[in-house]
């Protein structure tokens, strides 16, 4: 029972960590600090604009890929892979 509890806490930590990246890239870079980021330019993009229209989406894909990786590893550590 003890192991199972800590599996759940590790799971929660992973989710909180990834959701903070999720929040920073979309609500943060795309909405709240977007004007500040607009002062910087990469190629033809203002950085804030890029985050709001493309960057956040690319970050989302990376978040889920990372999630799969971390959770599969967690499953292995706790030896409880779904059959």
């Amino acid at each position, binding site marked *: 029972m003890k192991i199972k509890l800590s599996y759940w806490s590790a799971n929660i930590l992973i989710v909180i960590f990834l959701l903070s990246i999720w929040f920073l890239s979309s609500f943060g870079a795309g909405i709240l600090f977007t004007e500040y980021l607009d002062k910087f330019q990469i190629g033809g993009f203002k950085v804030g604009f890029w985050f709001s229209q493309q960057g956040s989406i690319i970050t989302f894909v990376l978040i889920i890929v990372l999630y799969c990786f971390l959770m599969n590893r967690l499953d292995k550590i706790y030896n409880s*892979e*779904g*059959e």
Partner: protein
Amino acid sequence: MDLQFLTYLIAGVSFALYIGIALWSKASSTNEFYIAGGGVHPIANGMATAADWMSAASFISMAGIISFMGRDGAVYLMGWTGGYVLLALLLAPYLRKFGKYTVPDFIGERYYSKIARFVAVLCLIFVSFTYIAGQMRGVGIVFSRFLEVDINTGVVVGMVIVFIYAVLGGMKGITYTQVAQYCVLIFAYMVPAIFISILITGNPVPQLGFGSKILNEDIYLLDKLNLVLNDLGFNDYTKSIRSKIDVFCITAALMAGTAGLPHVIVRFFTVPRVRDARTSAGWALMFIAILYTTAPAVSSFSRLNFIDTIHNSEYQTTPQWFKNWENIGLISWSDKNNDGIIQYGPGKALENTKPIFSNQRGENGERVVLNKPSDNNNEIYIDRDIMVLANPEIAALPNWVIALVAAGALAAALSTAAGLLLVISSAISHDLMKKIFRPLINDKQELFYARMSAAIAIAIAGIFGIYPPAFVAQVVAFAFGLAASSIFPVLIMGIFSKRINSVGAISGMVSGLIFTLSYIVFFKFISPELNSPDHWILGISPEGIGVVGMLINFFFAIIISSLTKPPPEEIRTLVNKIRQPS
């Protein structure tokens, strides 16, 4: 070859493919009908999820809306994809572990209450039907423009196709047709985008062309677009106009709403294991992101192209596409200064927004509009929904590309419609009949009810398509707000809290839904004249109010649960069980 023939050919071949797949993968039990037997490969499920989830709105309307909204269009891009992250991290793996057939199944069992199940079914049916009406309008637009048949005939053809593969094949048939539909739609979306990106910037990757310099000019595409728009009196394309709190709330409402869409959630019930649910969520978002990172590029290309082609050109020499769209009433031109030349600019061209056409032609051959002209200089009314469809024609791409776009739009609309029909039918046959009203029916009878309700749902959806209620277009965007304020919070709390009980969940759903619904109904139908930032609560528009509804839902669910007695022991065991992947 002429466009109409090519469109018939490409659309016909794709339809034959869908039906062929449906016959090959006919469902023979409720298990196969509801969740395709639970044996779908994660990559196939990823594609099917992507097609299921990218609707006519994503394919046809989104780039056009962003094209005219500029930066603020990002609410759709971030909102719809960001919701996907919530779904993948907070819902999909646990609901897969729970492992039943429908979303109300989870709510009904986790909150050990038939009332909770019933309320969930109502929310689900309401959200799904508003959504499906939008798909049918998409099918209608495509048929009437490209196949030059009556909209009604088009809707009926669409209904027959969906009927064949949804009613016969159930989830199994839908899954494999959706895989095919994803391939058709993504190909159809990318080909013109790549063509146009090369034409404008010389870069074959539209996502990068978006940030490149215009071909043979020393100016970035986005800077040029800002310049051109400023010249015409518009704001910068890359500047935000809406208030920050409103943008924040709309994005959040779309995110929570997306995560609560039942037809997407059930897709994760079809894979074999919990880890497959995670993997397939990753694949799905990757497949979705291909279209979603292209869409903003398409928006900027098409806005620029549109202005280039139309502004300051003589009506009589405009290309044929302009007249074709005018003929079906989605573009209008009223020559305010009588110079025979089209002027485009900010503001609505017509009073009452939508054109009302008379049967007459003006002196340049344009369709005469009965609306009073507004007092700005803009002479062009254009329906934003046509930008993606008209884009290849505006850029003068070959006919086969235009035909391909039509087939892609149909694939997007039909795949989503089928997914929605399936959750409606399973909610009725499984949750209402089997679990509430007729618990004694056997598997075969339940399957019969499932097919019956799918057939009836298709008929109702078709009626929505043929006689679109005036409110449909306005309501579709709110399906998300309603899903965010009703379904999403109780799913989250059902997994992450053991303390929320049935009374709490029911009062949460009901309060969230009633608040959101009344806010929307008030501003959209009762007093539309008050629908402006000055009158909104905290400056939040009806599009974004779902977030407040969601908070209300959480608030009541938590308070009321803590005042009443905790859920029974077996529910705590159930929650513990779904938290473990094996």
